[in-house]
């Protein structure tokens, strides 16, 4: 028994040692970085972290960064993240985030609220960014970062099926009634007239077209349970009951996204964004496509916008150089070079005009820039929108749209109250 007794002295020693360990591990907070670091001058080594769609995008950004490095005397290293959100979170928590990174519009509030972003919008005076994009990246009345580029949703039509169903250019839907008629005519056998992705980032166009949206224009109150939103979802449900509209997960066989259903010929029409160009040329080269603006709803035209901005980390020690790099990357010529390489549209009004003349076949996407709605950018909305998405996916199985909007309203109100 004697050897098993721990004498008080030894116990205190151990406790003291452990305590010292705890203190040395936490003290100073060296691993976490404290207040904003001092800004360094002179040639800088910048790190750019991007969530790339593929080699063409990575190489285009690398080329641009190299050109800027040569011109400015700094160096910029491009890292293509395999999971951007996670790697950024890790960078912020570890105190060594990349200087410059793609910041998704949906995450602006999350990032800005906790002070991860260096808001440099006031240094971008004179840049004529599309007003809807400026709104998307504004949090608490401050433009947080420069819009990198954007994409919008448009209606894609399989022209072979269109002709086979006896439809002509005059039948291209201008409103919901036209969409319904065309979709019904195109639905035949295994083909569904219109197949769209099963989340709010596709179905949301119906909410916009009937004049509704998740939050009010100033982003301060929830408007999810409005009559307009309900009308939008009811329109979708009506077409689903008729069988002319399906979510990608409800087709047989189910598709990974609207573009897959369209490319594999189980959908005659789909609602997708600029990125579908890549899939059409690479994966489904035989499909003949016409891209038109989305039909207008009772409240006029409506589409959704998707965008990233060039976020600059608050903890970066090279803010001035990073802003300079952003200015270079968002110049019209550079943005058009990106458009050429991997498809998105320039974020400025002038760039947009030049895009339209350069790519007339994508004019429908560019037109959406004038009236598109960006995603909800408030903090804490990521899980709220995800929860609504999983409810929305059951719309075709007879779920009650009013109940799902009420739940969205409730969850969103809680998120706004917390944020």
């Amino acid at each position, binding site marked *: 028994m004697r050897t098993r007794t721990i004498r008080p002295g030894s116990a205190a020693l151990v406790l003291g040692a452990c305590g010292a*360990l705890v203190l040395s591990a936490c003290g100073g907070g060296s691993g976490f970085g404290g207040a904003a670091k001092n800004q360094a001058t002179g040639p800088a080594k910048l790190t750019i972290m991007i969530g790339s769609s593929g080699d063409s995008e990575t190489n285009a950004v690398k080329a641009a960064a190299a050109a800027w490095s040569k011109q400015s005397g700094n160096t910029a290293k491009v890292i293509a993240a395999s999971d951007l959100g996670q790697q950024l979170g890790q960078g912020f928590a570890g105190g060594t985030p990349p200087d410059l990174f793609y910041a998704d519009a949906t995450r602006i509030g999350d990032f800005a609220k*906790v002070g991860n972003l260096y808001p440099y919008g006031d240094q971008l005076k004179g840049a004529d960014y599309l007003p809807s994009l400026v709104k998307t990246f504004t949090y608490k009345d401050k433009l947080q970062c420069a819009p990198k580029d954007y994409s919008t949703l448009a209606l894609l039509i399989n022209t072979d099926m269109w002709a086979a169903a006896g439809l002509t250019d005059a039948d291209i839907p201008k409103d919901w009634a036209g969409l319904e008629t065309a979709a019904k005519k195109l639905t035949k056998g295994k083909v569904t007239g219109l197949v769209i992705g099963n989340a709010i980032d596709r179905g949301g166009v119906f909410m916009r077209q009937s004049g509704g949206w998740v939050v009010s224009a100033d982003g301060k109150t929830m408007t999810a349970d409005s009559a307009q939103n309900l009308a939008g979802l009811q329109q979708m449900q009506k077409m689903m009951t008729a069988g002319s509209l399906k979510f990608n997960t409800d087709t047989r066989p189910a598709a990974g996204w609207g573009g897959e259903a369209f490319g594999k010929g189980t959908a005659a029409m789909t609602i997708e964004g600029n990125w579908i160009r890549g899939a059409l040329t690479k994966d489904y080269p035989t499909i003949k496509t016409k891209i038109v603006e989305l039909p207008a709803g009772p409240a006029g035209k409506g589409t959704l916008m998707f965008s990233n901005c060039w976020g600059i980390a608050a903890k970066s020690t090279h803010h001035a150089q990073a802003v300079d790099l952003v200015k270079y990357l968002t110049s019209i010529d550079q943005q058009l070079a990106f458009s050429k390489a991997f498809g998105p549209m320039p974020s400025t009004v002038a760039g947009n005009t030049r895009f339209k003349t350069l790519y007339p076949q994508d004019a429908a996407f560019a037109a959406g820039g004038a009236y598109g709605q960006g995603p909800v950018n408030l903090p804490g909305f990521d899980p709220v929108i995800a929860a609504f998405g999983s409810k929305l996916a059951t719309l075709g199985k007879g779920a009650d749209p009013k109940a799902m909007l009420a739940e969205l309203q409730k969850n969103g109100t809680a998120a706004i109250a917390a944020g």
Partner: protein
Amino acid sequence: MAKRKTGIHGREGIAGWVFTAPAMIILGVFLFVPIAMALWVSMTNWTGNVDPFGGGPNATFVGTKNYTALFLQDGLARSNFMQSLGNTFYYVLLVVPLQTAMSLLLALIVNEKFLRGKSFFRTAFYFPSVTSSIAISTVFLFLFSNTGAVNGLLKVVGIDGPEWFSDSRGLLHLFFGLFGAGENPGWAQGQIFGRPLWDWLSGPSVAMCVIIFLAVWTTTGTFMLMFLAALQDLPVEVDEAAMLDGVSPWQKLRLVTIPMLKPALFLVITLGIIGTWQVFDQIYVMGKGSPAGTTMTPAFLSYKTSFTSNAWGSGAAMAFIVFLIIVILTWAQRRLMREDKSPGLLHRAVRAARLAQANGRTGPK
């Protein structure tokens, strides 16, 4: 006590501490300190970009708020967490018994003396366990895709296979449906922690079944090895004695082999419970909680809450709740599998008598 003890044993204690110090420092730095730090984080509203111990608006101490919010506060955090607990409950309920039974069966087979190519089978069964779970998950994505091999096979026998990864219907719901219980019947209206009883009773979703299948398939090999090692340790004499007594193979398995395997069984079930409650990588690869959150697990939700929602406090709280669940389950299982399960009255009387007799013989100490 005032006088310091000297002599040959005097400094043993200090020497002991010195010898164990390296191990204790390593354990401290890499185990106890991180756990203590995580426990602290779970009681703050840390946003992940300042020193979590520095206070301030981004790291305020909030007490047990993160914990209570997950159980008592009506909202998205609670409903997501409760759904993940429900999902994982069914996952554990199916995976642990299945993997234990399967691995025991395989171990018994490859332990058979008359089996040919024993080492081939041992290697083959162990293979899934040594392969990266990410690689296996990816293979399963292809196998169970809508036009994949599994649905192809089902088609051959005339079954139209489900859309495995996008089917959020629960198995128990489907089963109730056979008896005409439609959506949300009257008897399942109550709520537990804000989640309707009907949702708690959903059973694993079709998508979760794929992950269950995957988990059983990959872990069986490891546990088979553990059973195999235990089987080879069993005394041959007992087996032979049982055979002389004329037991049937089934009786031998049930009354002789399995009771002797109890320590191994305990190990396998404990490791199974720990591993299944912490399932993460398969979820990460195979849909990140979709469809409709039916493959969401607490481990993945904790990661998501921390890294993408920047709510590190809430994420850490989830991790500690899962830790508690595992501890409680392991403790309960230990109680259930204890060596002498509350001996009967007669048993105890006999033992007491024997003890008294033995004491009487040698006299009190």
